[in-house]
C-alpha cells in the first residue's frame, strides 16, 4: 500500500494505492488519525487505485470518520471502482460515508 497526500486549501487529499488489508490497515488508519489530530480534519480519500479493502480497512475508515466528525471536520471518499463499490454495498457502508464519483467533483462540492 502506498499513501500520497496533497492539499487543496483546507482540504487534504489522501490517495491510497494497492490493498487495504490486515497488513496495511493499521498504517492507513494511523495516518488518517494523525492528520485529524494535527488539525487536517477535512479529508478526501481517493480510492481510485485501491485493489480491495478488507474489513480491517473498513474499521480504519470508520474510526477516522468518527474522529473527523468529532473534530467538526469531514471525511469524504471519491473515485471508487466498481469492485470497491461492491464491497461498500455488501457491508452497507455506502450510506455511512459521503462518496463522490471523482476527485474533481468532491473538491468542487466539499
Amino acid at each position: 500500500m502506498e499513501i500520497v497526500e496533497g492539499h487543496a486549501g483546507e482540504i487534504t487529499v489522501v490517495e491510497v494505492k494497492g490493498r487495504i488489508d490486515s497488513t496495511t490497515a493499521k498504517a492507513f488508519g494511523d495516518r488518517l488519525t494523525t492528520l485529524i489530530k494535527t488539525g487536517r480534519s477535512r479529508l478526501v480519500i481517493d480510492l481510485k487505485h485501491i485493489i480491495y479493502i478488507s474489513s480491517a480497512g473498513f474499521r480504519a475508515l470508520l474510526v477516522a470518520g468518527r474522529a473527523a466528525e468529532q473534530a467538526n471536520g469531514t471525511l469524504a471518499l471519491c473515485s471508487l471502482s466498481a469492485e470497491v463499490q461492491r464491497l461498500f454495498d455488501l457491508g452497507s457502508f455506502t450510506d455511512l460515508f459521503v462518496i463522490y464519483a471523482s476527485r474533481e467533483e468532491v473538491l468542487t462540492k466539499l
Partner: protein
Amino acid sequence: MSSTEPARAASLVIGNNIAELPKVAELVDRFGMAHRLPQAITNDLNLCLDEILNNAISYGYEDRQLHRIVINLLIKDNFVIADIEDDGIPFDPWNDAPAPPRGTLQSRKLGGLGVQFVKTLMDEVSYVRVREKNVVRIGKRLADGGVDGDR
C-alpha cells in the same frame, strides 16, 4: 497437458503472524497469473484469505507459541479452491453471525464483517475439524471454459 504447464496446485506454510500475510497475497497473485485467472477472482480470493487468516491468527491461539498455518490452492472441477489449515482452538467461522448493518458512523458495529464478505464473495465455503486442526475451504466458480490448461 504440456510439461511446461504450471502446476494446478500450490502450497504455502506461514507462521501465525499478521506480518506473514503478504506472502499469501504474493502466492495468490502468482497462482492467478500462472493460470490466467480473471483479476477479479484473484482479488476476491486474496480478500477472503486475508479475512480468514486474520481471524485465525488474531483469535485462534491461546498461547504465544509459533504455530504453522498451511494454505493450499487448487484448481479443480471449474473451481479455484483455497484450503486453510491451522491448529488453533476449534472455530467454525461460518457460525459467526455478522453484526446488523445498522446505525450511524458513530454507532455502527463491524463484528463478523469479514466472514460476511467471504460468504458473499465465494461460491463455496466449508469447515471441518480434523485431527485437532481447523480446515476451512473456500471456493470460487470459474466461468465456463475454465482456465489455462482446461482446454
